[in-house]
């Protein structure tokens, strides 16, 4: 695919981005079967709306937006995963690289627990494809909101993926010689 070309072909889009689209869809839905459906749905939509994509450079973001819209549409149709509020999740201590032991299933399980507005920027962030500014553009919220959501979602993920026992915020705050590195405001 010629990056500078203005009118990308659908075949180029599929070839260059189908893996990213599938992975994103998988992390959003938590199911390979749903992800494949969502991937097909995404490229079908892309096929219909291809003329909207005027610059091949924007293809990745454009496709990811279609994925998310399709996912939300399915979610509204009742096909989505049940998520719980971060408020209802027991607080645990922040994880460190040394004590954090987790695998794919645990990661996906904790992702599924996140509300969509937190899960989407988190996935995009960890895919390392988009900066927080680009993520803000994709989800259509101010940059500050994305930064806040990223921080809260990452904090949740760190705590959930930690093997440490449950602790409270007050206990965390009492940690000695920790320079006020307390948790950001919970969602």
């Amino acid at each position, binding site marked *: 695919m010629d990056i500078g070309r203005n009118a990308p072909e659908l075949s180029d889009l599929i070839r260059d981005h189908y893996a990213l689209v599938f992975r994103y869809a998988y992390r959003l839905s938590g199911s390979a079967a749903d992800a494949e459906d969502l991937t097909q749905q995404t490229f079908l939509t892309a096929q219909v709306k291809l003329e909207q994509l005027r610059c091949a450079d924007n293809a990745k973001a454009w496709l990811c937006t279609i994925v998310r819209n399709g996912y939300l549409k399915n979610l509204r149709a009742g096909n989505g995963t049940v998520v719980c509020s971060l408020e209802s999740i027991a607080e645990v201590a922040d994880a460190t690289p040394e004590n954090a032991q987790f695998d794919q299933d645990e990661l996906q399980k904790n992702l599924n627990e996140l509300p969509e507005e937190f899960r989407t920027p988190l996935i995009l962030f960890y895919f390392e494809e988009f900066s*927080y500014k680009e993520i803000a553009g994709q989800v259509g919220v101010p940059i500050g909101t994305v930064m806040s959501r990223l921080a809260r979602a990452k904090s949740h993920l760190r705590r959930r993926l930690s093997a440490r026992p449950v602790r409270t915020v007050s206990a965390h705050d009492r940690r000695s010689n920790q320079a006020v590195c307390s948790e950001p405001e919970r969602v």
Partner: protein
Amino acid sequence: MDCRSALEILDCTRAGSHDLQEPELFDAKTHVETCAACDETFRERQMLDRRIGELMRDVAVPVGLFDRLSAAVVPTLAEEKLTVVVTPAENVTPLHRATAPASAPTQLRRRRMRIAAGLAACLSLVAAIWIFSGKSAPTLTVDKIRDTVPLEQSVVEQLDAFDERFAAALPGGGWDSQELDFDVMKGFGKSRKGGHQMALVLFTYPARDKSDLMGMLAIIPKDAVKDADTLGTSFASGQGNYTNRDSEVYATVSWTAGDFVYVCFVPDTEEARERLRQVLISVPA
């Protein structure tokens, strides 16, 4: 800026990227660089981010997904034989696929099945309407029959034998009289369903002291004649008319009996009509 705010702001930066160069992150970056605890926490979080990121991106793409997409989304792509760089992850089928076999109908397949079913239903409806309309709206009329059937003996004799698409039967009311001599049934016209539209049969009947007279009877299914219901139900009560063909005038009588419309053609002479009438009414129906 305090530690909490600085670390929260820097949470949006990707490890190893240029995000830290963004101007709005300058204060947070400065704080972390000057705060040992924050610096350590930030480094730990970035290490954890790397691990989570690696795991997050490590999603096995189903084997054959590209081909399925190409075939399903843009069927023509399958013929282009595009070169695909297969990543190592593609060689692994995720465990999740075990609960969703590749043959499971996808949304696209289901959509196509729904479209196909809809088209089939529409086609069936159109076919049904066509068939129904074909039965309920015949275009053949008695006048058209009179105007189109061949009346020359030689022409009629050269027609194909009637294909018996319908069970053409002679009418009652003396038409089975021994005085009438019927030729072989011939077929004429093409019906909508194929086959002959009507049966034609030449007959002869005796003329007193002269050579025999010849007539012709056309037998047509009643449901193929638009104005069949306007006709009488016997030869005696049938609709009389005249047909002029090649300077010859023929007297015609049209009537319905059973499932058929009959149209009789005889030479328009007083003798012929009278003789035929006598033959037909000599034997009660």
